[in-house]
């Protein structure tokens, strides 16, 4: 077997590993071949037929994305035959697609539109098929809008939902002209197993799947002088927002983001990182409590492993698919909802504001957070704790609408009271971050010493591997935690629900002995969330992760329990972790849901 394969693409020689596709070979020498159904996160479908190339001597064209190169192959990517086929493919897709681009939410960010303009696709060769179809828009979900008229059947969403998430809320139904992307019995997305993670949205090339946006509602709230609009921004927003505003992936734009939020008209600009630290305190103590009850008290009612609960997509996944395992979920709310509950209680009191005049907005990397904020449990303050959830993409849109030249903004700082954060709060945005943050705090609570990792960096839980494990043996604990002496704390970190499913199967059949599992619904954690800028790929996620860890390393405070705003919150208000007020405001319960 030769170690490389030689072929020619557009008369240029390429040497590439066996098994590589024509597309990969072309990209390796910087020849771009247009694609639509291809996505580096997903298996190859080969159904849009846009990437067709010519093999010298062959009659039919070949799909570059799905054809492995063979020795001596001669490929043309820009012949007359190829250009014609490409254009016809685009025209056919446009004929089936409601092409009212100027009214489309994806206008300007649509892959089909970009290609149509690149290849000068003009209207009219084909009959507009849209009037013959019975297209409907499904906008019943608080998170996602599905418009079949914009769908080009590339099945990227279907593959995403199946391969990355193992949910398959979206699937292909019918055949021929009737073929469509559908749900179980074509029910609205809001009524099926959909976790609202939004991965389908970040993988959709057109406007067929988009987030439900709350931009106008937020403008309206800010326009109303009688209302005090508070905004919180999640850890993963500041390292990705730049991408939607012209920067390369991996730039930290916290200061500019804060400045922009102020310019947009938010009255208090606060930080979800603050409540991420708070989550660590509550969730960490819950873990310790469970360990005490299981290890010391041998209480069979208490479940280990405990799993994290900050990813609402993950929660809904568990509610639908493993309702029996709900007792494993930490009762701690997500940072967004802890923040929301405190904004309209603690914060309102501190700034002397009547909570009923407050509007609480969050900016999240996530579409599931829109659903989470609308859950009936999430009214601990007596009001809806979080009124509107915007994605990173929506915030970028508002910044553009407001005519703000983002890149030239001077850096600004979050407001006080709920605006400070530690590096531990920052890394919440990456897979493994919650685990790392929790271990930094839990280990210290138990032993009085810092976690035994160089520079507090718990490297085994970092990175884009789907399932990561780390073990930490506790020795010489403080007297109160004597029962943990010699105990090896076993942890597991998973991102993407396909991985979560595998781990939960093990939890269900008892074939794993973890104590604590971090699960994030989205690949890479929140940094790869369904509300983040597009396009996304492993490279982009890697760049964002690096930015997050850079941010953490640069922080003066690296541990949640040392966040001064959090310390003050406990002193002045909550009194103690897992206390009465905490239970009222910061913890929640879950509901078993059906599979359909």
């Amino acid at each position, binding site marked *: 077997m030769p170690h490389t394969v030689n072929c020619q693409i557009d008369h240029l020689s390429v040497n590439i590993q066996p098994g590589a596709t024509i597309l990969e070979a072309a990209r390796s020498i910087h020849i771009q071949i247009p694609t639509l159904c291809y996505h580096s996160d997903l298996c*190859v*479908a*080969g*159904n*849009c*037929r*846009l990437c*067709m190339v010519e093999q010298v001597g062959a*009659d*039919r*064209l070949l*799909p570059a994305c*799905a*054809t*492995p190169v063979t020795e001596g192959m001669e490929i043309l990517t820009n012949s007359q*035959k190829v250009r*014609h*086929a490409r254009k*016809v*493919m685009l025209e*056919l*897709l446009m*004929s*089936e697609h409601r092409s009212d681009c100027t009214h489309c939410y994806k206008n300007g960010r649509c892959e089909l539109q970009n290609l149509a303009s690149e290849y000068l696709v003009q209207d009219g*060769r*084909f*009959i507009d*098929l849209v009037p*013959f179809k019975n297209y409907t828009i499904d906008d019943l979900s608080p998170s996602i809008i599905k418009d079949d008229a914009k769908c*080009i*059947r590339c*099945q990227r969403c279907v593959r995403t939902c199946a391969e990355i998430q193992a949910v398959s809320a979206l699937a*292909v139904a*019918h*055949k*021929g*002209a*009737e*073929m469509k992307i559908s749900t179980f019995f074509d029910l609205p997305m809001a009524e099926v197993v959909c976790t609202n993670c939004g991965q389908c949205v970040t993988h959709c090339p057109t406007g067929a799947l988009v987030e439900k946006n709350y931009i106008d509602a937020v403008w309206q709230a800010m326009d109303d002088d009688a209302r005090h609009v508070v905004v919180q921004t999640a850890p993963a927003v500041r390292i990705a927002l730049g991408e939607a505003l012209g920067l390369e992936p991996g730039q930290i734009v916290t200061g500019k983001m804060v400045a922009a939020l102020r310019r947009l008209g938010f009255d208090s600009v606060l930080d979800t990182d603050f409540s991420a630290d708070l989550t660590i305190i509550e969730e960490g103590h819950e873990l310790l409590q469970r360990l005490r009850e299981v290890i010391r008290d041998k209480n069979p009612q208490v479940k280990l492993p405990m799993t994290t609960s900050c990813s609402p997509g993950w929660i809904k996944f568990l509610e639908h698919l493993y309702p029996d395992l709900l007792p494993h979920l930490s009762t701690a709310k997500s940072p967004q909802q802890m923040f929301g509950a405190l904004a309209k209680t603690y914060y309102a009191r501190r700034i002397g504001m009547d909570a009923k005049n407050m509007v609480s907005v969050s900016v999240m990397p996530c579409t599931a957070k829109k659903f989470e904020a609308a859950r009936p449990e999430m009214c601990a303050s007596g009001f809806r704790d979080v009124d509107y959830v915007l994605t990173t993409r929506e915030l970028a849109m508002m910044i553009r609408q407001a005519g703000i030249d983002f890149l030239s903004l001077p850096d600004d700082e979050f407001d006080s009271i709920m605006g400070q954060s530690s590096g531990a709060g920052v890394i919440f945005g990456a897979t493994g971050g919650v685990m790392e943050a929790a271990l930094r705090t839990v280990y210290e609570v138990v032993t009085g010493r810092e976690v035994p990792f160089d520079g507090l960096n718990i490297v085994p839980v970092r990175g884009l591997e789907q399932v990561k494990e780390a073990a930490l043996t506790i020795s010489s604990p403080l007297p109160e935690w004597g029962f943990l002496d010699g105990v090896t704390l076993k942890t597991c970190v998973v991102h993407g629900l396909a991985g979560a499913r595998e781990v939960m199967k093990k939890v269900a059949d008892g074939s794993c002995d973890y104590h604590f599992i971090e699960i994030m619904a989205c690949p890479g954690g929140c940094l790869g969330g369904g509300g983040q800028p597009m396009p996304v790929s492993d490279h982009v996620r890697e760049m964002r992760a690096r930015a997050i860890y850079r941010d953490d390393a640069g922080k003066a405070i690296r541990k949640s329990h040392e966040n001064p705003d959090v310390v003050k919150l406990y002193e002045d208000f909550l009194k103690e972790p897992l206390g009465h007020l905490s239970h009222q405001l910061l913890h929640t319960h879950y509901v078993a849901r059906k599979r359909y």
Partner: protein
Amino acid sequence: MAPRHLMRLDLIFKDEHDVAPLVRQTLARGRDDIVNELIASGLKGRGGAGFPTGLKWKLTADAPGDEKYVICNADEGEPGTFKDREILMRVPEKVLAGMAVCAKVIGARQGFIYLRGEYRFLRAQLQQVIDGFHAVLDEAGLPFRIEIFMGSGAYICGEESALFESMEGQRGEPRNKPPYPTQCGFRNAPTVINNVETLAHTYSIFKYGAEKFRDLGVQDSRGSKVFSVSGDTPVPGIYELEFGMTLQRFVEDFGDGDTKAVQVGGASGFCVPRKRFERTIIGYQGKLTGTSLPTGGSMMLFNSSRSMYNVLHNYLEFFVEESCGQCTPCRVGTQQLLRGIEGVKRGELSSATLDALLDLAETMRLTAKCGLGQSVANSFASIVENFREEMIY
């Protein structure tokens, strides 16, 4: 009225009473011996694509893998084709014998018959024959079992890779090729998939020898072929004929005296107008003089009372519905062709639209993922080019 000129053959449907001994005898032969005989016979697949059967078996035998499968494609979905049903009703044991020999050659322990959903009525009878046949295999010492898998009525599931998907419990959508089934088929294992008739022919070859089979037919098209004759003919039905006849001879035997066109190979085949009958030879596309046609064996005759617009409209409706819908050229292209000819017929689109549609059909041929979308151009171009006025007026 019986066909006059064409010699009818009686190979496939001939009652043979020696299946068990023949199977034993053939299974005792060496693998290479069997494969070489098949290759020498010149047998090509009767399911549509015409791939050399001996080579298919050889490639699968040589492919690495412990698990291999033999699948008999009995999905028979091509409009105007009903010969596989007849073979399975009358001589099923020949098909089973072919599968068993194939299993021995490639090293398969499990075989399947993918039976068209509409042929459910055949199932019980076929199962009985299979049960009896298993006893023969046990005697012969071949650890091989055959199971029936019921299709559900989608035409596309006759396409081999869609058929595997369907058997695996997935949506019946064709896969990307390569890899081909010989390397990566059912359950990603090397798989021989053959048409019912192809397998039945292997029986004749093992019985009478490659030489005899090769003597029949011409050049690239050897042996006999079972034809499903329908349409404007006084003698519709199933006929086994030798390859290599001209369409003229065929029409003389089967036409009603007023035949204006014959659709050869079903909806995905070609339409031949009267003026071309003499020059058209029935066989695989190869180096024959005149035009030659691939054939799954469907021959639909149309007389002058038929509107070729209606014929084409009917085929296009079939494709619009039976495309699996995954790839752009086929899913959207078929709809454009159908709406396009409707628009021309109604006078809403100019007749020049037909040229744009011909171009589209050609682009579909070049770009579609599987044989379905690739072959829509066959009937479309041959009907539109030969009967252009009928499309317009």
